[in-house]
């Protein structure tokens, strides 16, 4: 009896003391993926780390991209009551919050990549790779800040996210003045440029991508001195813009694509013309994909019931800028960019719906096509649109999916740099006949205009309009107005106020053949008040609530803290 008790007690003690080798048992880092300590060990892994900056963190910016870049600019029509079209933006606007979240996450990821490459890269990673990867990340960071400063104006400079968190000061930061943000962008690009190779793998940022961006930054910065009453731009900045743009034009070896509409086709995602682009894919992970087609394409344009852009038109003002009149059934078609930018009644697109012999933008065929027509301005978007599943397979070898295409979004094109050069050379002059500037402008125009006769001089209106025709619907045109507003706010506002942002009456009946003639097809005119135009988008209200400093005046940034 007693023995049994002792034996049992011994077993019990053994069992109670059988605490396993706890530390091993309890140490469980992520098991099905890498950790930052185990990654960045090869060149390929380092490149893979920066690949992600070419798509996902930008995803949330997509909807705001067109609304800010082209609806505010008066190129894209979302309805006269749309807050972007009518300039009644509020700080609780979801697209603004998303755009802001997206741009800041790009900055955070880029900061992280630079830090991780510095601290974690393995001994087998070459210096060239480290430099290239950091250079790409810094250029993307500059790009994000360039959007931030042009959208929101003064914004905080977040140079090291981890440091702000560990010092618990993330809610104490102040906005930096716009001029400091531009200085920061310039410094970031100057840091990136020597790290970047002259040529890089297709689609990746190279040294000339950064030069091109730097030229554009200097051009914007040239007018910014805090005074928005009409004044001249900084000649030093204009010279820098011209210098860097010239480097791209003369030294990069890149050429304009011969056919304008080819730039926006899936097969040309990595074209020479494209200096900086988002490179999407159709992947299992949400945010890896391009979703523009859903917002912008005609309803039922693809097979996935995932397009709802029927009522998103091009403004009558842009139609007129291209010399088109939607109330007529015939097109003038002098400028190839018109058809590559906007579909109008009677247009035929061989590159959309290739499996069905091409796509006819024809309101009378609505039923046969299963397409819904209804744009109040008589036109719909062409850029950012791929077509149907067959077109996607032809262009990329893979199918699309619901709200997902792989079409790259070009943020900085060679033609843009040509026009930057022309504008920088024109500078504060009323007009110029500088031959190199003329060549840049004429090269861009000659590509698209039938029977083109080169111009022999140009003024600011010419270049401003050319940029609009060349870059409409690429999310960029609004920033031309922002740039102008830096040194002549009234001029920028008046240009916007002069735009016809209205709609056509009775277009539906006319296009569908219900009306015998177009006598009742009239413009329902709608314009904005110059005084309602704001050139800064309100900061998202979540941030204002968390950090009251954001509602206060900007505080100059201490550049000695960043190390370059």
């Amino acid at each position, binding site marked *: 009896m007693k023995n049994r008790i002792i034996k*049992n007690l011994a077993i*019990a003690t053994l*069992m*109670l003391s059988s*605490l396993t080798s706890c530390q091993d*048992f*309890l*140490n*469980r*880092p*992520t098991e*099905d*993926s*890498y*950790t930052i*300590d185990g*990654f960045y060990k090869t060149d390929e892994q380092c490149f893979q*780390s920066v*690949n*992600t900056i*070419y798509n996902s*963190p930008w*995803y*949330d910016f997509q909807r705001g991209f067109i609304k800010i870049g082209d609806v505010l600019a008066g190129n894209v029509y979302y*309805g*006269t009551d749309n*807050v972007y079209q009518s300039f009644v933006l*509020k700080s*609780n606007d979801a697209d603004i*919050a998303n755009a*802001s*979240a997206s741009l*800041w*996450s790009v*900055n*955070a*990821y880029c900061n992280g990549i630079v830090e991780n490459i510095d601290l974690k890269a393995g001994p087998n990673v070459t210096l060239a790779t480290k430099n290239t990867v950091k250079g790409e990340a810094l250029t993307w960071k500059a790009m994000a800040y360039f959007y931030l400063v042009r959208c929101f104006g003064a*914004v905080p400079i977040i140079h090291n*996210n981890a440091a702000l968190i560990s010092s*618990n000061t*993330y*809610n104490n930061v102040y906005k930096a003045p716009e001029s400091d943000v531009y200085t920061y962008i310039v410094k970031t690009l100057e840091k990136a440029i020597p790290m970047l190779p002259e040529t890089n793998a297709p689609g990746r940022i190279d040294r000339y991508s950064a030069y091109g961006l730097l030229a554009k930054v200097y051009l914007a910065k040239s007018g910014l001195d805090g005074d928005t009453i009409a004044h001249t731009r900084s000649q030093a900045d204009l010279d820098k813009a011209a210098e860097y743009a010239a480097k791209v034009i003369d030294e990069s070896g890149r050429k304009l694509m011969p056919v304008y509409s080819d730039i926006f086709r899936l097969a040309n995602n990595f074209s020479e013309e494209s200096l900086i682009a*988002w490179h999407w*894919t159709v*992947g*299992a*992970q*949400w*945010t890896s994909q391009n979703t523009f087609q859903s917002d912008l394409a005609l309803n039922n344009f693809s097979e*996935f019931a995932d397009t709802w852009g029927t009522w998103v038109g091009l403004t009558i003002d842009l139609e007129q800028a291209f010399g088109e009149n939607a109330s007529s059934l015939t097109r003038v078609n002098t400028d190839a960019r018109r058809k590559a930018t906007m579909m109008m009644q009677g247009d035929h697109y061989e590159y959309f719906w290739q499996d069905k012999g091409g796509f006819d933008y024809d309101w009378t065929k*609505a039923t046969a096509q299963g397409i819904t027509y209804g744009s109040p301005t008589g036109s719909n978007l062409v850029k950012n649109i791929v077509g149907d599943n067959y077109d996607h397979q032809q262009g990329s070898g893979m*199918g699309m999916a*619901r709200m997902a295409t792989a079409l790259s979004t070009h943020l900085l094109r060679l033609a843009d740099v040509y026009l930057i050069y022309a504008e920088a050379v024109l500078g504060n002059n009323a007009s110029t006949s500088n031959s190199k500037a003329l060549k840049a402008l004429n090269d861009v125009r000659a590509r698209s205009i039938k029977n083109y006769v080169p111009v022999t001089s140009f003024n600011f209106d010419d270049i401003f309009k050319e940029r609009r025709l060349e870059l409409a619907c690429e999310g960029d045109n609004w920033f031309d107005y922002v740039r102008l507003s830096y040194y002549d706010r009234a001029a920028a506002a008046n240009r916007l106020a002069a735009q016809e942002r209205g709609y056509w009456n009775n277009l539906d009946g006319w296009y569908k053949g219900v009306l015998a003639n177009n006598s009742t097809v009239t413009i329902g005119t709608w314009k904005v*008040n110059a005084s309602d135009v704001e050139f800064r988008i309100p900061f998202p209200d*979540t*941030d204002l*609530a*968390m*950090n009251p400093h954001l*509602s206060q005046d900007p505080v100059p940034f201490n550049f000695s803290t960043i190390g370059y």
Partner: protein
Amino acid sequence: MLLTGFGTICAQSLSVSGVVTDAGDGSPIPGVSVLIKGSVKGTMTDANGKYAMKVNQGNTLVFSFIGMDKQEFSARAGVLNVQMKSDATMLSEVVAIGYGTSRRSDLSGASSSITTEKLKASVITNIDQALQGRAAGVTAVYTSGQPGSSVSIRVRGQNTINANAEPLYVIDGVPVQMIGHSGSSFGLGDALGNGATSTVSPLSTINPADIINMEILKDASATAIYGSQGSNGVILITTKHGQKGEAQFSYEGLYGTQRQARRLDVLNLKQFAEYSNEMAAETAGREGRVEFLDPSLLGTGTNWQDAVFQLAPMQTHTVTASGGSDAVHYMVSGSYMDQAGTVVGTTFNRVSFRTNMDAQLKKWLKLGLNLSYAKTAERLGLADSDEGIINTALLSTPDVPIYDMYGNYTSVSRQDVASRINPIAKALDEDNLLNRNKLIGNIFLEATLIPGMVLHSEFATDLNGSQAERFRPIAKYGSWSRTINSDVWQFNDNYFWQVKNYLTYNKNLGLNKMTLMLGQETSEGGWKYLSGASTGLPDNSIHNPQLGSDFVTGSGFGSNSMVSAFARGSWNYNDKYFATYTFRMDGSSNFGPENRWAPFHSMAASWRLSNEDFWSSIIDQVSNAKLRIGWGQTGNQNIAAYSWGAAISKMETGLGQGYRQSNIANPYIQWETQEQVNLGLDLTFLDKRFDLVVDMYDKVSKNMLMPLQLPSYMGTRGNVSSALGAPNGNYGTIQNKGLEITLTSHNYTTKDFSWDTDLQLSFNQNKLVALDGTDNAAIEGYGQWTDVVSRTEIGQPLYNFYGYVTDGIYQDLADIQNSPAVRGDGKYSRTGTVYPGDIKFKDISGPNGIPDNKIDEYDRTNIGSPMPKVTFGFNNSIRYKNFDLNIFMSGSYGNKVYNYMAMNLSSQKSIWNNQLAVVNNRAKLEPIDGSIVYPYVNSTGETINNWFDDIDNVRVSNPGTKTPRAIQQDPNGNTRISDRYIEDGSYLRIKNIALGYTLPNAILKKCHIQTLRVYANIQNLYTLTKYTGFDPEIGVSTASTNVYGLDNGRYPSPQVYSFGVNLTF
């Protein structure tokens, strides 16, 4: 041993036998313990209540049974029949505590029981549903009325910001794994909403009919033994076990019908036509619709609410066999449940088995096995969302039929273009399927090493598997079409095992009784998933992703582990003074080497005043009085694994594979710890007629685990698939203070008639005490997407709604000019700016914290708390002869509901949306001076074409209205988040009325039936509330975290009319 042996030999000369019956209904009671007083010698009654044993002259026999008054008789030879009375005070009841049992009378902590009788009074399909209104201190809110859906349980308030604030459930000692239950974690993507919680319940895989008792451990002294898992409260569930005797079979069956009783008052066709015509006239740029020219010719049109709600049958059947020999007891049950949802397209069914066995292998060694398997199949729908079926149905206009003339689904169209998918088609054609398997059980040995010392060694496991499928068919509904289908499957596999050993030692030293417990536990859990998705399957008939193109797979796995040691000591002095000390040490893999281990202590003491001599003068009036006090610590470790480091995750890109840092690491992350003080009083008074339990508590959760709330410039906001993950860490402090009252009253008790009443009242006050960051740090919750609807500020209760305060309607230009400025430069336009008829908002504050006479985002403020001040349950049990009637009411008081659904339903922004009938009383404009002839050139030289465009000449014709004017796009932001949509969420619900009849024994005996009870039950018969939506019981949001009480089309809880049978033979 020798002494006992001697006694055995020379005593026991008398034979005594008899039957023990229930004094209440005369039925025999099996399993009554019959002991010789002062010894462990005795027997138990058999299945027929009979016993027989040998006793000694002069012995006293003690008859005892759980829930019955103990009875003592002097032993004598012959027949001794005993009637046992139910123990009104329940003092002698043995209740489950962590890692053991205790007499209720010995407890010093705060816990409540839910017995099988209470479980049976309601129609419940998930065990968590049983908790509503049944236990003080427990708030139980149905997340949805969908079959099988979850109930959010909060024990003593919301203690954490974590998505998982649910208590720990322990079934027969096995902790139930609350594996991630968001729709996306099952592989259903956003089909069930985007929140961290969904309506799918981890507990719906457990058959509630197997349960005999639920014990809710509330204060820290009770839960501390669960250490790092105890801070949200612990619910101990005991399932039925067999008793010695011949096999006993029982059948419990129920058949019911469910319906949605309430309909919202939306416009019918005639009203909608009138509204559309007026809208076209009142808003700019839109033409009226020709088909609505004469609304008087129109009927009522399509009632989409009637179309999406259906009468839904439900049935459950459980068969149980139980019994046993001296050494082996068994209970085996099988059950089937099938329930359709009251919203079309939703169903739930479950098949489950349970086996509970225990065997006395040797005198000193006992073996136990509890095993349960369940298989569930669900067809789920999305209700609570802008895209949900309830919203879609309500917004669908009455001029659209459900089917076209060929019997195909239509679509809600706008100029021949589908603006909204047909809600019926969406609900019935799009599949969201979830099949789950669960095996949960344990096997244990209990060895009595020396008298009073028991070693319990146990292996427990909980295995879960699921298969989810999302199928989107090729479809054409009117002008809405989808020409490529898609199919996604996901398999999840989760395992959990636990080994625990604990030694319990009971020792009586005179008046001192002591229990010591020492234990150890090791557990590991893990998960795996594999998914496959494709598009373009040949047709809709075969749902196999392999048949489609662009096949995409996904996979992942992970695990976590925990090692613990624990100890408890309890002391009882003469049933007057009680004390308990508990200690637990946990090590968890969720934390880094810096902070992996944490200790948890608790202490409690109580004093039974009624056992003191000085009490004897009032013992007849107050038969039991006990004061309890306790303090303790518990923890919470519910965070994602590896928050202490930074993982790399994959992202495909147009440049090839990409890998990126997923989150910002926090190596110092540690346990969330909670400290709680509890003060309690138990009273039994007035001839045992009343039982009163009062508890007061104050608990503080520190180092709250949560993602750091960062402004967007830190890069951690936006789409979770694209943003950098904010660091998880210990960032806040929450306090909950409260009072709980349970009053049980035996109003009337006779042989033929009895009436008992239970009342539970729970008061809780909740406050965010501190949060990391600046004074302005706050926790935000969002509505459907990025719209801030709740904001938890320091010093305020959690999840306060946050928005603007309305101040009536602008009557005319002067009213606008005399009110705080909105936007603009003094120019007004009907379509682009504020205008008479718009909502006036209050100027609360400005950039400097003081009102600035401007309406902007600084004017948002706390507009109400979704947290109830009081929740209550009130139960009446009445028995008359063989009839029993149970009426149970529950409710909450003082909480606000945000009627998010009403924002779109009264926005008047689009004539393609149906609206609530309140829009008929919207602000309408009229000319002040009807004599002005337009076009008219005003003083500033502007030509005005119509009187309604002339702001100088318009005013609201119905000044008393609260609904703003109709205007496309809403330039004034009338639909912004504001107190316009805040409603009183208080309610009193007649939760259950159950009427039962137990057939008389005389009749049953002839049919060899032991008991037969038939009953009818009505659930949710009536709800008294001011809330204008379907159902004021909203609970946690399935759309976003940190939001509570937001109704965006929550699936309303149905009324259930049911009929059931309980049969034992």
